[in-house]
């Protein structure tokens, strides 16, 4: 239970900060903060915060405006029929996606519950070095499913102590060398030869992206002293 409220705390913070990228109270999502060290998860017995998830943030509002403008343009061009055509098509798409979204959310929740926070922050945290980037890359490459799994799981990793670098390596690896999209779409459409070479070319990129992410992160957000710094 302690673990769970720990995660909820992080996720809620993450969702609330939509559009406020430099909010200093949220500035260390990827690292255990001094007040909230991952290793002290057992002591994290604070009561579960209430329903603090906010479904509406700035990103959502911007997207909603974008959608409204686009729908208006479609309506002016194609009339009500055109608007309804897209709506029915997208509603059926939405219905097909929903079970997978549920699977992704459950996968993220279970993973964040069963992964020991201390171990994750050691092997994927800011101090995990090249090994952490390689683990993130491997994890992204073997993760089954599409975006409906990759992002909930990446979000769960962030919440249990992975840093931005390792999480970037995981997300980039999933999108560039993960087999899901390659098998389902890229090989049938682009051909095996192109796809395999494209993947070979992409092999070094997740580690490089994660390393660049780390390099920039520590310079952009110089972190305060934590007990980690003494090791």
């Amino acid at each position: 239970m302690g673990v769970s409220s720990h995660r909820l705390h992080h996720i809620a913070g993450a969702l609330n900060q939509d559009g406020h990228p430099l909010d200093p109270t949220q500035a260390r999502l990827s690292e255990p903060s001094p007040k909230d060290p991952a290793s002290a998860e057992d002591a994290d017995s604070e009561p579960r915060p209430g329903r603090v998830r906010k479904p509406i943030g700035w990103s959502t509002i911007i997207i909603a405006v974008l959608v409204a403008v686009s729908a208006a343009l479609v309506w002016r061009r194609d009339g009500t029929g055109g608007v309804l055509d897209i709506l029915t098509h997208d509603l059926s798409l939405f219905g097909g996606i929903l079970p997978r979204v549920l699977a992704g959310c459950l996968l993220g929740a279970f993973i964040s519950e069963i992964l020991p926070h201390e171990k994750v922050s050691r092997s994927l945290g800011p101090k995990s070095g090249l090994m952490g980037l390689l683990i993130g890359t491997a994890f992204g490459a073997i993760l089954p499913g599409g975006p409906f799994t990759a992002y909930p799981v990446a979000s769960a990793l962030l919440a249990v102590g992975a840093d931005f670098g390792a999480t970037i390596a995981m997300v980039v690896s999933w999108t560039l060398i993960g087999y899901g999209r390659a098998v389902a779409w890229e090989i049938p459409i682009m051909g095996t030869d192109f796809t395999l070479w494209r993947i070979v070319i992409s092999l070094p990129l997740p580690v490089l992206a994660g390393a660049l992410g780390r390099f920039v992160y520590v310079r952009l957000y110089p972190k305060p002293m934590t007990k980690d710094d003494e090791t």
Partner: protein
Amino acid sequence: MSAALLIDILLWSSVFGVGLIAFGRGPAVFSASLREGSLDFINIVPRIALGVIGSGYIAAIIPQQVITGWLGPDSGWLGVASAVVAGAATPGGPVIGFSIGTVALKSGGGVPQVVAYVVAWALFAFQRVILWEIPFMPARFVWFRCAVSVPFPFVAAAIAMLIGKP
């Protein structure tokens, strides 16, 4: 068996597998994470709905011809740069993205440019970022991830030029 079905089976067996491990830690852990996952799901559904239903309209006002035009015959680094922009701006799902890549290859687009296009599309197609990444991830992470990813379609194109493949 279709690839989509295979992936669904893999996905749900993974959920089942980690669920089983969680259950092994005790029913309390299991039900806590079950509730946690369901709350995440309920919370995310409105955003996904907005994204899925909305992106159809956004895609409808960006004609594919515009994107294909950016993947034009320019074979140098300028071509790579416009391929990266085209990848980011491509609306729709993987079918559209890869089909545009195939069309570009067949109509004489340079291979490194098409590699850059596919990599850029995979890294930051706006529709996936809006529809999936922003709802699930902290917004700050998403912008940061996209920013540090910018060099890599160019790196991919450079490697493709270097090894002369595919």
